[in-house]
């Protein structure tokens, strides 16, 4: 079950979930991510600042991750309701003269970025794990649960396997994202080779009878 909290090796419950690599979230873009079973809209303002919110516009429930970013404001694709980085609604285009009510606000999670990885936390307490000098490569989704993969790979935060360093992000319905990091200083050919190893690893996991 992906919903079961895991206990990393330090013996503390997981506070922070890795949800994306910095390289995959350009300024002024929004993407959908899932942390602890909750769907979030993760977005970056033009200035580079980040926000992670419930992926649901308070107006009509449209996914905010399908919205668009101008400066440091996210607009819903549906009717253009516009929110600042704190999640506060600042403009309703159909009523341009109206000052939106302060109660129109999107529930937010804590989000932080360190050494090329974006982490979110519902409570925001503590700091995410330090991945040091490891270089983010790419993220890929496996059709296997986090628990099944951990039974096979082990329980650390950063798991070394086949020359790759993996961060796991469990998803609902028996799926898991592998955020792959490598040692520092790989050239382009080395990165492609590492990416191909990661693909082969996924194939192995999904083909294995032992990882159900």
């Amino acid at each position, binding site marked *: 079950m992906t919903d079961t909290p895991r206990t990393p090796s330090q013996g503390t419950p997981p506070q922070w979930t890795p949800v994306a690599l910095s390289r995959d979230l350009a300024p002024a873009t929004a993407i*959908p991510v899932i942390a602890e079973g909750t769907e979030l809209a993760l977005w970056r303002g033009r200035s580079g600042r980040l926000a992670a919110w419930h992926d649901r516009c308070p107006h009509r429930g449209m996914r905010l991750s399908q919205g668009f970013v101008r400066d440091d404001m996210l607009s819903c694709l549906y009717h253009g309701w516009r929110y600042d980085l704190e999640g506060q609604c600042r403009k309703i285009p159909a009523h341009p003269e109206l000052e939106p009510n302060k109660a129109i606000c999107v529930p937010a999670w804590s989000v932080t970025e360190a050494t090329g990885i974006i982490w979110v936390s519902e409570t925001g307490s503590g700091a995410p794990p330090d991945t040091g000098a490891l270089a983010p490569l790419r993220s890929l989704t496996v059709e296997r649960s986090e628990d099944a993969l951990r039974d096979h790979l082990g329980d650390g935060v950063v798991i070394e396997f086949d020359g790759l360093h993996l961060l796991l992000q469990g998803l609902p319905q028996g799926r898991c994202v592998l955020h792959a990091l490598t040692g520092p200083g790989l050239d382009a050919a080395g990165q492609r080779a590492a990416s191909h190893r990661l*693909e082969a690893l996924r194939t192995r996991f999904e083909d294995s009878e032992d990882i159900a």
Partner: protein
Amino acid sequence: MKLYDWVLSPDCYKARLLAALTGQSLTTVATDVFPGKDHLTPAFRDMNPRATLPVLVAGDLVLTEVPAILIYLGGDWGGDNATERARQAEWLTFSQRLAGTLGLARRIDMMDAPGDLAQAQRDGTRLLRQLEARLFDRQTLGHAFLTGPAPTLADIACFPDVMLAPDGGVSLAPYAAIRAWSRAIRSLPGFIEMPGIPRLHELSPEPGA
């Protein structure tokens, strides 16, 4: 040039998009395929016995296969040497597989087409993974597009069925490199949208600002 066109068809959109990006004007003939079945009329079948959209008519030339239409409209985008043309041909064939999997899932889900939805979704997901891996490789070389530094027929042929995958119940959330590629295509001067494939609103001035 006249394009027999259906607004909800990714194949028709490929032709319209390529024409728009290369600055060519098309006279479109709107054809109501679903639910109208305009493509099953004797007049249409006389022009295209397969009864499919799009059809491109340029003088005596009548083209009914999408890769052929893209090659005809593509001009310089089609590559100026055998290696580049062959690379693009690989992706034109790949795009036909996308249409037969992701596109099929969408037709089953949205338009009551016959077929095995779960199978089409699984097969389409395999292709999305291949595309994602390829686009990551391209990123390591500093390239946003499939076969060269600039967009080619390869990108235009693959783009629509990929972008419409969610209409067939296949999420694009797992694919970061595909997302970056989609933004690169939608940022091109002259880009046009179709229902389900929005333009990048942030690139246009804010209305009323």
